[in-house]
């Protein structure tokens, strides 16, 4: 009797392990991974999924087995065995989660570090600043030394001198994203980036807190009014990916979406060219038309081209 049941237990254990290992790799729950960081996160998720599946099968198995096997027979009013505990067993099942979370913590730390999350050079956090300066007076003493650690995620652009990251300024407003390319002066409601070149986003919000989420890149960072946050990532797959706002920002929060285009270097240059010319034309025209224009007035006629609606633009007004 003992031998068969232990063999059965062994078979169940092996089956459980195999199922967990298989499911951990083949759950198919994650969307496309469009950067190497995303691959790292997926690897971590697959590992956690494997462990979780194993524990799930173990505990649910015990529950189902108990409910079937240990049902009280009709008329049996006696009690079960008076087992009040078992110290070695309790030590084992204290050790199991301890070891698991220890491994998970170290692994997660590794991945987070690889993603550049602990890189203090990404940017300085100047602390809270005034979102809008009233009466032109700064009320808050700024940390001019920029000694605070960065808010955000991503390998420091300075760490690799050979690569010149593409810097883009991101402004989140109800309910749109506005992207400014400082190198070329392009302003757009969509974001275009070349493949395999690091992209450094400097983000802030114009009204309430938003969150910049790229599901295919597995990265997300809140965009906070009065603060600058950063994201650095390197896309490695050409394609069109959604940009989603992931922090409740008002009634049309669900509509605050745009697209990220990862393009070949040529396509990207072409897009920049087109938009730079458009911008230059625009600026000369508008300067000629109204020399003292506001940013909102300046942009209004071109809102359609930019994919930004008028309400969104109105909020750009400083």
């Amino acid at each position: 009797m003992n031998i068969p049941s232990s063999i059965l237990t062994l078979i169940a254990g092996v089956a459980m392990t195999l199922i967990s290992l298989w499911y951990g790799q083949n759950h198919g729950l994650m969307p496309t991974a469009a950067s190497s960081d995303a691959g790292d996160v997926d690897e971590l998720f697959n590992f956690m999924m494997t462990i979780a599946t194993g524990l799930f099968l173990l505990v649910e198995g015990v529950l189902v087995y108990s409910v079937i096997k240990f049902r009280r027979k009709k008329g049996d009013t006696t009690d079960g065995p008076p087992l009040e505990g078992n110290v070695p067993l309790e030590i084992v099942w204290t050790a199991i989660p301890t070891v698991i979370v220890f491994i998970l913590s170290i692994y997660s730390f590794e991945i987070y570090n690889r993603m550049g999350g602990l890189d203090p050079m990404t940017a300085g956090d100047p602390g809270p600043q005034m979102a809008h300066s009233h009466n032109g007076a700064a009320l808050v003493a700024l940390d001019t030394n920029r000694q605070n650690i960065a808010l955000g995620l991503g390998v420091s652009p300075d760490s690799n001198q050979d690569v010149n990251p593409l810097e883009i300024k991101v402004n989140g407003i109800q309910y749109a994203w506005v992207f400014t390319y400082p190198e070329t002066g392009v302003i757009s409601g969509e974001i275009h980036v070349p493949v395999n070149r690091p992209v450094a986003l400097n983000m802030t919000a114009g009204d309430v807190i938003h969150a910049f989420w790229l599901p295919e890149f597995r990265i997300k960072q809140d965009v906070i009014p009065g603060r600058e946050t950063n994201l650095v990532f390197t896309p490695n797959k050409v394609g069109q990916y959604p940009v989603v706002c992931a922090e409740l920002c008002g009634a049309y929060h669900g509509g605050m979406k745009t697209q990220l285009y990862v393009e070949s270097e040529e396509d990207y240059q072409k897009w920049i060219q087109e938009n730079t010319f458009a911008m230059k034309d625009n600026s000369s025209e508008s300067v000629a038309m109204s020399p003292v224009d506001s940013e909102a007035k300046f942009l209004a006629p071109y809102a359609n081209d930019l994919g930004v609606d008028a309400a969104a633009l109105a909020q750009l007004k400083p």
Partner: protein
Amino acid sequence: MSTTLERNAPITSPGQNEHPQRKWQDYFGFSTDHKVIGIQYLVTAFFFYFVGGALAEVMRTELSTPDPDFVQPEFYNQLLTMHGTIMLFLWIIPAGAAFANYLIPLMIGAEDMAFPRLNAVAFWMIPPGGLLLMSSFFNGAPQAGWTSYPPLSLVSGKSGEEIWILSILILGTSSMLGAINFVTTILLMRMPDMDIHSMPLFCWSMLATSGLILIGTPVLGAALVLLSFDLIAGTAFFNPAGGGDPIVYQHMFWFYSHPAVYIMILPFFGAISEILPVHARKPIFGYRAIAYSSLAISFLGLIVWAHHMFSSGTPGWLRMFFMATTMIIAVPTGIKVFSWCATIWGGKLSLNSAFIFAVGFLSSFLIGGLSGVMLASVPFDIHVHDTYFIVAHFHYVLFGGSVFGLFAAVYHWFPKMTGRMVNETLGQIHFVMTFVGFNITFLPMHQLGLQGMNRRIALYDPQFQTLNMVCTIGSYILALSTFPFIINVIWSLYKGKKAARNPWRALTLEWQTASPPIIENFEEEPVLWAGPYDYGVDTESIDGDEDVEDMLAAVTAEGN
């Protein structure tokens, strides 16, 4: 069981003649009896459960299509804010307090709570607080989510937001008054023979819960008062337009609101620890491990709050610190889950409504716990933060955990509270519908979140429609599942089989008195003749049952 019933009858009836009985009016007045207050809490909580549930059904109906066609997005945000607030502050937390009020004095052999009047005041703050919150629907309900992050909460409707703040302050105060009472009662009013290690585990879990309430709630109060100044007096504590820091609000909010998660689950951890041994006829496995792990969860719960802010304005080192502390919580929680499994292993299980809900609790809470460990991992959390993965996770913890535990507790203590047995068939139908509906509603949400569906949205990408439809259908099953429950409760109240003093043959003290208990709780000083979980040792078998009843009969006879 019928034999015990007959034997019980002559014992309980002289007791009930001797003592004044509760009139129905008592349940609508300012009663200081902890049993009345407990039932007042429970009924009030259930009322708000149905309100919150109705709001959820409107939301799920809206989400069956990608476009905001059923309700306006603005109204959708009001719904989600009110649904969250009602379910947390007016359903789960008061329901936990309901069982604490009803059970603690009975379990420790006391006549009442330490501060009966304070107890009644704590309860009577809940209906005004709840009605105040609901009144905001007439005046533009709050729409910044139950987290009310500034600056959004400062710019999306002043009156609704201020009403929300005031009602949370009222409900928070009520919760603190209750906690003071629980701690004092548990520590000082146990019967002389009962040391702290022979106290039922429910009392341990309420001790842990009350500690969290007392430490956390004042910080939430402070945050809300400051938010209120920003809102109506134009200060800039959190408003970046005036130089304030919205991240500080998030820290203060989550310093309470993470422990609040444990405030909502710990009472039901305690209830499960009571229910499993009784219906498995086995002692709880590892009494001390379960008791101390409650305290460990409570302590660790205080130092993990920033894991709600991994993608917010938190620097990398802070994220790593809170990842580590959050991971550690898996250890005491794991101990509990394993101990519960070991408790039912090898027992003699009665698959009645209370027990199957308790097993349902274990199996669904497990999923919430496993996804919780995943969420502790910063790189993964950054991907799924504020997505439907989170929605799935916390519903597995709060619904699969707290609510299943709560229903188990209702079925388990219903005979004690009302003196009637529940209808087991209806109870089992209720369980199957709840369990199936719950999993159909929330399991697909994991995938939705991973794939890229953010939460708190009235309009979503059409690629997610199929799964959302599944969720919506599940939520309708869940809504229907409450009907067998309501019918069961009403039918059992009037027509249910009369419950004996101790229909489950349980060993904790609340089963030593009549069902429902007399106003003074115990006829005589209760006798601590067995540990709370000594099944198989000092068992109350049918024979043992007679002994106790003979003993009690003798006591009653002497009294007469």
